[in-house]
């Protein structure tokens, strides 16, 4: 069953957040620091009840440094997330080794990334989803020749036994009686029709794949003794699986779910799981979301699709290589990459048809992920890279900060500069204006280093107007925040892109931001960093991951053992 369509889902194209490029959007209401005590506009941060500042949970006193010495985590009430398109496809692959046909996938919408990192807020479920789920389930079931592996065929009540067995596989937990009962009428119908039991088995599978227990991150939130409770073992196993694998729990994990009652047990499970190839898949998916790399698909029309694919593969190979033994911040450095002939073009290098590791230690323009063509092009605002676009990308996705809305008094149009003025000169003018400079001072200077790259990620000495590039800048000071005055207390100058990346790499703000992104991504809710609970969760995870060794795997362990991950707020 399907409706064929010639165009892909509109939300896919609408889902991506782009960066604004002008002072008029970035605004100039900032008159000082943009600390945590300045709430971002609620809608800048996302949508939904999770966006209400504090939501009754204690908030960090304005202007004070964060004190986590006595903080106890209080989970908020959340909106149920639907599994994402990527998680759905992984689940089908993991559970049944099945990949839908392109035709069947045509109508399955892509996810909304709003405003940064995919969360439950803003998710919709439309007829397009439902239709796709139905059709894909039908296709998958038709490929199944037998289901003996899912239940004990030596059974008295085989219908129930089958539903319980297959259901546990699909839902990653034992089914309740009411759930089993809901599928039983299928057996009755098939028996009445006189068809073999395989028909019933296939129909039940189709129904399960369209059920909320499969399509949503459904957890048992019934009230226990306290409003805040530990996840039940099956739900914890499921969370772990989606954290580490971006897919469902397997039989091994489910079997040990009941034993996941201690930090050491959870850590052991995560480390075992991280060694599985599915861990690589999840890491790549997170980095894609964090860096919003799907923007590359429609970025910079001068790059052809095959080159874009090569650029993405370069980045993916680099990410996998770094995260094998390193951490997320290690992605920011690295004097090497992986190139083939197409991926080498933006570097002005030559390479063979296959990807090979290439040493870049003699090139001060290339250092780590942020300088790779895929990332540069994804955030280049079409063919016209701008300081504002790049600066806001760094501010929002590397530092998890934002700027307030513009004041109505800002004069965003008048300028004494010619149209062919450099981005640097335009920025200097913005910084010189009280109205604009108040905010732009916090992100423009970070982006100067990226002026050496054109929109396609190639190094340039002159901009499109022939102006010389000045790569010097500074990492702006951040004061009066949850970091106190210990982080970025003063502007920190840099000479070039390598210098900037070194500053970012050492920044505690960036370190906590990376954790915030991971936690947001796995919990599918926008964190409320103005609350002591969420801010301390991020800080404690960051510190624990560093203490464990600082690798990506260590970060996963720190997340998985955090109360932010293992506890829920139960029903009133």
């Amino acid at each position, binding site marked *: 069953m399907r409706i064929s369509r010639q*165009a892909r889902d*509109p939300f896919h194209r609408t889902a991506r957040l782009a960066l604004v490029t002008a002072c008029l959007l970035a605004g100039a209401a900032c008159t000082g620091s943009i600390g945590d005590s300045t709430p971002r506009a609620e809608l800048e941060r996302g949508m939904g009840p999770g966006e209400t500042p504090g939501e009754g949970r204690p908030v960090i006193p304005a202007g004070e440094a964060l004190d986590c010495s006595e903080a106890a985590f209080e989970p908020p009430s959340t909106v149920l997330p639907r599994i994402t398109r990527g998680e759905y496809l992984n689940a089908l692959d993991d559970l049944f080794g099945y990949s839908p046909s392109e035709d069947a996938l045509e109508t399955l919408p892509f996810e*909304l990334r709003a405003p940064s990192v995919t969360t439950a807020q803003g998710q919709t479920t439309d007829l397009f989803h*439902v239709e796709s789920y139905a059709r894909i389930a039908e296709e998958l079931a038709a490929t199944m020749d037998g289901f003996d592996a899912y239940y004990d065929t030596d059974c008295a009540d085989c219908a129930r036994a089958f539903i319980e067995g297959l259901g546990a596989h699909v839902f990653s937990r034992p089914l309740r009686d009411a759930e089993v009962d809901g599928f039983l009428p299928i057996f009755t119908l098939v028996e009445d029709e006189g068809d073999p039991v395989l028909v019933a088995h296939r129909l039940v599978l189709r129904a399960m794949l369209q059920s909320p227990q499969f399509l949503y991150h459904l957890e048992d939130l019934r009230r226990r003794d306290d409003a805040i409770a530990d996840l039940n073992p099956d739900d914890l196993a499921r969370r772990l699986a989606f954290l580490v694998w971006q897919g469902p729990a397997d039989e091994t994990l489910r079997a040990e779910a009941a034993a996941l009652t201690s930090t050491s047990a959870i850590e052991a499970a995560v480390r075992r799981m991280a060694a599985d190839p599915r861990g690589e898949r999840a890491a790549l998916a997170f980095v894609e979301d964090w860096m919003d790399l799907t923007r590359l698909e429609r970025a910079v029309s001068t790059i052809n699709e095959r080159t874009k694919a090569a650029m993405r593969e370069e980045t993916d190979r680099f990410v996998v290589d770094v995260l094998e033994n390193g951490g997320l911040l290690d992605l920011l450095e690295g004097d090497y990459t992986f190139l083939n002939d197409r991926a080498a073009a933006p570097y002005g290098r030559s390479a063979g048809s296959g990807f090979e590791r290439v040493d870049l230690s003699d090139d001060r323009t290339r250092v780590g992920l942020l300088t790779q063509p895929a990332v540069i092009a994804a955030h280049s605002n079409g063919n016209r890279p701008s300081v504002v676009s790049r600066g806001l990308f760094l501010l929002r996705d590397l530092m998890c900060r934002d700027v307030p809305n513009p004041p109505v008094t800002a004069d965003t149009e008048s300028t004494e500069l010619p149209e062919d003025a450099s981005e640097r000169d335009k920025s200097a003018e913005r910084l010189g204006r009280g109205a604009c400079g108040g905010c732009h001072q916090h992100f423009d200077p970070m982006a100067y280093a990226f002026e050496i790259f054109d929109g396609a990620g190639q190094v340039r000495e002159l901009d499109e107007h022939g102006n010389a590039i000045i790569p010097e800048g500074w990492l702006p000071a951040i004061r009066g925040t949850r970091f106190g005055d210990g982080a970025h207390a003063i502007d920190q100058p840099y000479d070039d892109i390598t210098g900037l990346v070194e500053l970012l790499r050492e920044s505690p703000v960036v370190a906590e931001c990376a954790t915030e992104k991971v936690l947001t991504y796995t919990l599918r809710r926008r964190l409320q960093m103005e609350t002591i609970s969420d801010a301390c969760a991020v800080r404690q995870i960051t510190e624990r991951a560093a203490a464990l060794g600082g690798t990506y795997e260590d970060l996963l362990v720190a997340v998985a053992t955090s109360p932010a991950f293992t506890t829920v707020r139960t029903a009133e």
Partner: protein
Amino acid sequence: MKLSRRTLLRGAGTVAIGLPFLSEMAPSPAYGAPGDVPARVLTFFFGLGVPVDFQADRYAAPFADHLGPLAAVADKIAFLRGVHYEKGSRTSGNHDRGSTTAFIGARESGASIDQVVLQHLHGDVSPTSVRTLCAGTFSRQDQNRRHIHSWVGAGMPTAQPIESPAQLFDRAFGTFMPEPAEVDEGAARRARYDRSVLDAAVRQYQHVTSDAFGLSADSKRRISLHLDKVRELERRIFDPDGPVMRPPSACAMERPPEYDHPELVEIQRTVNNEGVRMEVNRWMDFWKVMVDTYVLALQCDITRFGNLQFQSGGERIRLYGDYTAYGQTRSFSDDTTTHEYWHSWHRNDRYRALMLDHIWLIMTALTDYLRALDDPEVTDANGGTLLDNSLVLAGTELGDGDAHDIENVFHLSSTACGAIRPGVHNLDVQATQVYNAGLRALGIDGVSMDGEPSEAGEVASILV
């Protein structure tokens, strides 16, 4: 079961853009409407606003110049001046906030008025085959909050807005039925099996939304919305002629063409702020087909609630060429983007003129929609047109685009079965109060947009 769309006439993609082929095929009289007049709430959003200086005034001819197209429906609309999204908060207004506050009022994470009414009257049971239909043009796809104007509440969008007439057709009219050659016992059996699958899934949704999992009210709402789509799929497959789907045969229409104009493709893909060049007639042809398709869905009672949008909040587009409508012609320049006209009109006379021309264009788009709803050939049981009998609210995101404020935000209403006085109303109120008045106009008491039994109430003066 192999299923195909009943109404799709394959090969119809060559239909010329802008031809009134849809209206010719519209049913008459209004279809699907029951013996009494059904409640409909239809919002219309346009980006960038109309500065208060150029809104209709009680003491001047309301339809002069840039508002001229609306004269075509003059006795069926009410201009609502002095409507604020957040009174006194000039520094917090912007395109995002205004766009997401439209049709909600003061609380950005609340439900929009279409959903408040829908939920109040029908709960989670959809009264029509499509519970809510959202469509329109929106090129600022990087800012999703600027083109979503129907909200369930708790920050959850109601539906995915559709930007293509062909996809809108699919969403509204797409249905499923067995291929004629397959209508045999085997096919009938497969249909029974298909239904059993969906029925089993529905039982799981019902189980989950009981207290079995302790889900929050918002989470249950999300599941309920999903279930509504499952039921819609079920209806489309198994009950296309049923009482909810309505007789589709009388609503048969050709599927609108896919628009393959390079400019439109670019508009739909662009993420930059430079704006896309577009010849104005192409843009408006696209719009008219969108309107025709959307209104036909209303006429066929496919839906009664939703949002139609003409350009998103903070829109940036470079229109060029001459456009003639409603006896007037305007010339458009692609010097810069629409957003910049609004942003500089106080200081730049040329931009002021361009902004006014573009406001005129917006009003032609709005008038296209209102006139289509006012089709005298398609009436409800009381003899009124859909425009007469619906609460149609037109709104935008900003008051003055130059200031980016959210005071004096242009609002316009239909008369809603004669409950709202036509003409110009000079107010000084929160949008919530106006929307509350809309609820009263529909005979809904004891419900307010902010969820509070507030004494602030509605604006009684606009009610008859």
